[in-house]
């Protein structure tokens, strides 16, 4: 298992390096100039390019960037004067992660429950009803659902704060809006996986042993249906914890989501690089964790991995 893990870690590091290199050069291909502005004098823009080393050849900029990266220096934002990229990530990520995890908790729990019920009531009205709810979660984009919820629960009913961050009640609406898409996905995945498991011989054996329905469902069907669900969770967790531009914007949440879009729009090179590397490293780490958990859930995978390493 140790060698298996070491192998995975080395691949993860190489992946992040390739990602950083590719992003750096692709970023430089984006047309435009981060300092181009109608408000700033042309002479000042020229000095700013010099100050940030953007007048140097791209290769020289790349070498300097890698050197700084190895020292853990991701640079300074070009647009948010006085703020380092590390600071922006350090302040924004916990907010997005908290919202994401809350949303994930809600959506996975709801999705699994819906999926189990759908499978148990296959092709009957509860199945149709829950699938309809789940599909609506995907069909209704957050940019539609968010303002509707904000208006009804915040403005009309005054049950929840309209926008903001910092208290648990401010997290309810954004977590639901952010998680509804995942609910739909989890419901469909759990339903399909469970239907597959329900036809397996070992389920028939369990029933033949005299286990009641609840025992069969909980001990055998649900547990064995979780493997594909866990597989999808790794990238899902990484994605949802990195924040959402739309949800964070409509509920005024000071997370990272906004920066993923704004940094590119503003051509804030250090921020684009910092966020990409951070997201890439986080995604790779989550996938690594999933590999480990996957192995724990299914001994066949663990064994095959061991053989491969040998």
């Amino acid at each position, binding site marked *: 298992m140790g060698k298996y893990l070491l192998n995975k870690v080395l691949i993860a590091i190489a992946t992040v390096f390739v990602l950083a290199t590719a992003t750096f050069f692709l970023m430089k291909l984006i047309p435009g100039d981060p300092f181009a502005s109608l*408000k700033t004098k042309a002479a000042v823009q020229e000095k700013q390019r010099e100050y940030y080393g953007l007048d140097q050849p791209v290769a020289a900029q790349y070498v300097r960037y890698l050197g700084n990266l190895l020292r853990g220096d991701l640079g300074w934002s070009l647009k948010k004067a006085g703020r380092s990229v590390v600071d922006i990530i350090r302040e924004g990520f916990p907010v997005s992660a908290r919202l994401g995890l809350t949303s994930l908790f809600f959506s996975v729990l709801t999705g699994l429950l819906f999926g189990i019920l759908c499978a148990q009531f296959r092709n009957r009205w509860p199945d149709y009803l829950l699938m309809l709810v789940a599909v609506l979660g995907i069909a209704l984009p957050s940019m539609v659902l968010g303002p509707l919820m904000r208006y009804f629960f915040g403005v009309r009913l005054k049950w929840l704060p*309209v926008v903001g961050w910092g208290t648990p009640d401010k997290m309810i609406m954004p977590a639901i809006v952010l998680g509804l898409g995942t609910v739909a996905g989890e419901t469909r995945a759990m339903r399909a996986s469970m239907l597959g498991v329900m036809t397996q011989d070992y389920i028939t054996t369990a029933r033949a042993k005299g286990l009641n329905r609840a025992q069969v469902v909980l001990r055998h069907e649900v547990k064995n249906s979780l493997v594909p669900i866990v597989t999808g969770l790794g990238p899902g967790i990484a994605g949802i914890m990195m924040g959402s531009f739309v949800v964070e914007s409509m509920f005024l949440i000071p997370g990272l989501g906004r920066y993923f879009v704004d940094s590119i729009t503003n051509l804030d090179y250090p921020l684009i690089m910092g966020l990409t590397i951070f997201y890439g490293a986080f995604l790779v780490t989550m996938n690594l964790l999933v590999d480990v958990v996957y192995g724990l859930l299914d001994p066949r995978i663990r064994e095959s991995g061991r053989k491969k390493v040998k």
Partner: protein
Amino acid sequence: MFFTIRRTGCLFVLPAINKEEKNVKKLISLALCLTLCLALLPAAAEGGAVRIAFGYDPNTLDYAMTNLDTANFILAHIAETLLMQNADGEYVPGVAESYEKSEDGRVWTFKIKEGLTYQDGQTPITAEDLFYAAQRLLDPAAPKDNASFGILNSEAYYNGEVGFEEVGVKKLDEYTIEYTFTNPTYESNFTSASTYAPLEQAYVEAGGEIYGSSSYLPLANGPYMVDEWLDDASVTLVRNPAYQHPEAAKADSIEITLNATADVIVDMMLAGGLDIASVQNPLQLQTLVDAGFVKSEESFSSTYQGLNLRGAGRTEETGRFLSNANFRRAINVALDREALAASVMTGYTPNWRLSAPGEPAYTANPDYRAWDTTANPALAQQYLDAALEELGATREDIPVLQLMCYESQGAIDALAAIQDQLRVNLGLETEIAPCTIQVMISNAMSGNYDLWWGGNEASVPDACESYLDGFRSNSGTPLRGYADAEFDALYEAAVSSPTLDERLANYAKLEQYFCENAMCIILGWDAHYIVTAEGATGYYLMDGGRLNVSGLTK
């Protein structure tokens, strides 16, 4: 006439009351009761918090770097400049106690009030702080966004051609500073925090790279100071205990919500989460008015929206036509500004000249109308025919003009409507080219456009230095692509006018020339309203549409 009441040894002597006197007494009693009732009614209260929201994080509060509305709003409350603008629009002493200016308006000497301090109540404000602010702004080794070159020799210093001792900023003594400008200047100039608000050198330098960020806030000397700035979430201003006029700050605090879009601001107002908002969209405005909020008179910010036109064109072929004044005039009158404002330019008022109502340049020449706000296809065709004759060309020779814009749906919709109007009213073919904001700005700066959908900011007292500057032959950028000696001469006459009256008179000629030659196709003025709860008073708009809520009571 008199009667007496005896009571345990005391003698009360009261006048006998006739009917008329009784009525008077009743009236007095009624008045007293009314007074009491009025006193019990809720009155406009001082103190408490004023809550407001803006669309962006300020990004920085470094006076030399701020360029967003949010930051400008905050600076208007925390940074006292040499002169300030009051609610009546007058320029009154701020940090300055008095000032003198030379006859030609180029040399300004300010005497700074003694005994002023920053928010800590200890660090004194002296001429050194203003000298340092100017020096720092113009430091080429650490370039600042707001660096400008109005002060004598400042551009030469920036380019390394002279030392700072040659620049027109002189500290005459501890409390006297003198500025010398290349062109005459006016009171409004000294309300700009980027150059004319004091900075304490030791404090700024201790902050280094992070000065002005949420981790190292500026030292305030205005009515408020920053208490807390949560990046991308909120900024809270509280009263500055060391401010020279403590009575000017009516509210205990100003709570600013950041990154709020227009629809979020409306929802927050409806839910009671905001006290004041600037609203542009007519539908959102109506929603708030229907809900009982009070709107101000229409006011115009300093933005002109429309089609920027490059006189030299994007290519030689398009430049051949766009450099012709009659061709530009044809485009200008072929567009129906009222139809555009009613459909794809909501929030803009159709314009009939460059300067917007409320600007000093407009007020100085209020009767001028350069064009109708509706389309005039017949006149447009006449202009086009005249242009073709001058150019020796036919309608088939006219190239497809490019309409560049930011890739937002709103901008694309606006250009689609313009495209239709140009096709129907003039027979001109155009193509829409949406691009990212940075690409759009780069193209604009390098002159790579024919017609570009965008806004332009004016300045006080007129649009010369911030906007019309780019139309000069020697503006230093290919942005507008004009080489018009007559325009250059009119521009020079305006900016070198020694008095404001003369400047505005000269500006009127410049504006007329600009409009009649359709050097840019301005289609609307950015109109907005201030919305408050009923009874809120005491806010006002300063130059450039900056809102000041120091005196707000609700």
